[in-house]
């Protein structure tokens, strides 16, 4: 088992003939993922990295039995792509595309939810379970199979942290990148029950950032429903209020969403708090050593 993806995951790439779609199709295949179809309207019959291309998700699913999609289409068309995937029966959609207007994402989220589809993202690196499947763009080299779960609002920072865990001699069960937008399909609170239920995850690393209250809500969940040890880190302690720090969702507005309140909440919930990214692997290793002694 793992979280949300496994060896049965069969991926259709929406926007496969674009530059990003092509590059990351190769990456997913090299990871060992079953990438079974691609979609670009008007390009049916082509192949990309050995993957057959279809005009519509419905045709792709009919021919390939795809059960997950990865969306790379440009922001103005992302809402349509998501609706198409949902209507074709896809129940797990990873949206890599960034700069999707949140008004569109509100519609996407509630439409998907009404049909039982989970969205990961948008503006996210996706999800990867080493040895099983990757849906998204997390670089393959940072991984090694293991028992550390990672859930994060960041992209590159997550790669660095996951890599640090690997260099410390540990490996990952599942790494889930939620995305840096104000409205995300899967939040910490949505993700945590999956890590709790996953028998392959012994310890969880939670990487948050300033803006919103997702970390505070996660802390609430951790306190009452999560039994595994957690190491938490929040980026943006030095960020000034009112400035959007690269991610659309990373903004301290009207005094809310500061790193201090998030760190305090997570600490209160029993998480071990890292002040810097490079402290995370050491804290995780300490917990793993403790678990081994038991």
């Amino acid at each position, binding site marked *: 088992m793992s979280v949300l993806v496994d060896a049965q995951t069969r991926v259709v790439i929406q926007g496969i003939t674009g530059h990003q779609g092509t590059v990351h199709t190769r990456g997913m295949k090299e990871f060992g993922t079953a990438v079974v179809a691609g979609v670009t309207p008007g390009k049916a019959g082509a192949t990309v990295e050995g993957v057959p291309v279809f005009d519509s998700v419905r045709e792709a699913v009919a021919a390939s039995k795809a059960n997950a999609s990865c969306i790379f289409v440009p922001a103005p068309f992302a809402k349509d792509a998501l609706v198409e995937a949902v209507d074709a029966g896809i129940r797990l959609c990873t949206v890599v595309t960034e700069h999707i207007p949140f008004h569109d994402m509100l519609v996407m989220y509630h439409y998907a939810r009404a049909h039982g589809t989970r969205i990961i993202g948008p503006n996210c690196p996706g999800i990867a379970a080493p040895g099983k499947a990757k849906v998204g763009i997390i670089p393959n080299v940072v991984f090694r199979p293991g028992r550390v779960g990672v859930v994060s609002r960041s992209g590159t920072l997550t790669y660095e942290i996951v890599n640090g865990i690997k260099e410390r001699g540990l490996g990952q069960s599942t790494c889930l990148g939620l995305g840096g937008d104000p409205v995300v399909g899967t939040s910490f609170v949505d993700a945590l029950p999956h890590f709790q239920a996953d028998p392959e995850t012994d310890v969880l690393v939670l*990487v948050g950032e300033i803006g919103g209250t997702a970390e505070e809500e996660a802390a609430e969940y951790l306190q009452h429903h999560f039994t595994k040890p957690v190491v938490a880190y929040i980026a943006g302690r030095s960020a000034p209020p009112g400035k959007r720090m690269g991610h659309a969702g990373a903004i301290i507005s009207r005094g809310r969403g500061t790193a201090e309140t998030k760190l305090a909440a997570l600490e209160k919930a029993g998480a071990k708090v890292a002040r810097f990214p490079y402290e995370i692997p050491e804290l995780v290793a300490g917990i793993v050593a403790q678990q081994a002694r038991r």
Partner: protein
Amino acid sequence: MVKLAEWRGKELFRKYGIALPPGQVVRSPAEAESAVASGGVPLPCVVKAQVLAGGRGKGGAVRFAATAVEARTASEAILALEFKGERVKEVLLEGKVAISRELYLSIALDRSARLPVLITSGQGGVEIESVADSAIDRQLVDPFPGLAAYERRQAARSLGLTGAAAKSLDALLTQLWTLFDREDAELVEINPLALVGDRLIALDAKVIIEDDAAFRHPEYAAIRDDRTPLEEIAREKEIAFVQLDGNIGVIANGAGLTMATLDVLKEFGGNPGVFLDLGGTDDPRKVTEAFLLMAQAHPKAVFLNIFGGVTRCDTVAKGLVEAMQQVPVAERFPLVARIRGNNEKEGVEILRAAGISSVPDLKASAQAVVAAAGGRP
């Protein structure tokens, strides 16, 4: 994030039929006097600085005038102001209205609920953050049906409005919702919303339009009230660039990593001056452009912190070396690089050939850049 000044927000309000006091925006004292003298602005009137920062009333950026000459002198004083770092370029003159109550009304995004939220309060005219929760009514609005009639009735009840005033609110809420939805707004706020007889009049307007919806709204692209000139250039080049008040420039890839880098610098006594997130790129030209932009901010030292994933280390190294050759010698700055991850070896080699060493340890590299900027080591 496009924050609209009050007068721009009110132009939008007018477009959607929301009632406003009679008024005019002016850019010189003479224009202010003639706006009043011509009858475009009734007397007495209020004279307001058009700045984005809040707290104008207490900060001397709002004055009153009973004659055309007073409107002129008040405008002159306000146009000379620099309000919380913003130079005042426009002044809004509006006829005073006979207010019987001041209310609060806004539509914003509730990130946790993933729904718009309609917020109403009978205590308008003060910052909503200072109003007790018990005096604020919040209703989540589903975007599929839109703002429903029962929600509008609930808003009227929460504000204690009945009869014609409640009808007036009903129409206003529909207009405000339509604006929020069609203009891709992040926030529309009317505070205070004045009850004048049984009419509702928007005395202020705070509107923020979402950047990411720019492809649907080219009309907002020209509004740059809220950005520094360098931030504006960065925006055109699709580089996330934020100017801060320190002297160390930070270039990293990914928002989270860039923020974490600032945090580490601050911990070691550094003071970040520029946040530059390269994002994911495999084009060395974009890296060069980012560096040249950074050079224009005249940092005392620059910290390049790259973890190669989608972005390859050698791509960044090539772009960096190219940029360093283009920066005039007099404007060059000490540079500390830390590049790790995808194609790290090749990247480090390219930098070494150009005389730049890469420090793999984040702590050590942060300390080195702080020292280079003249802060405590």
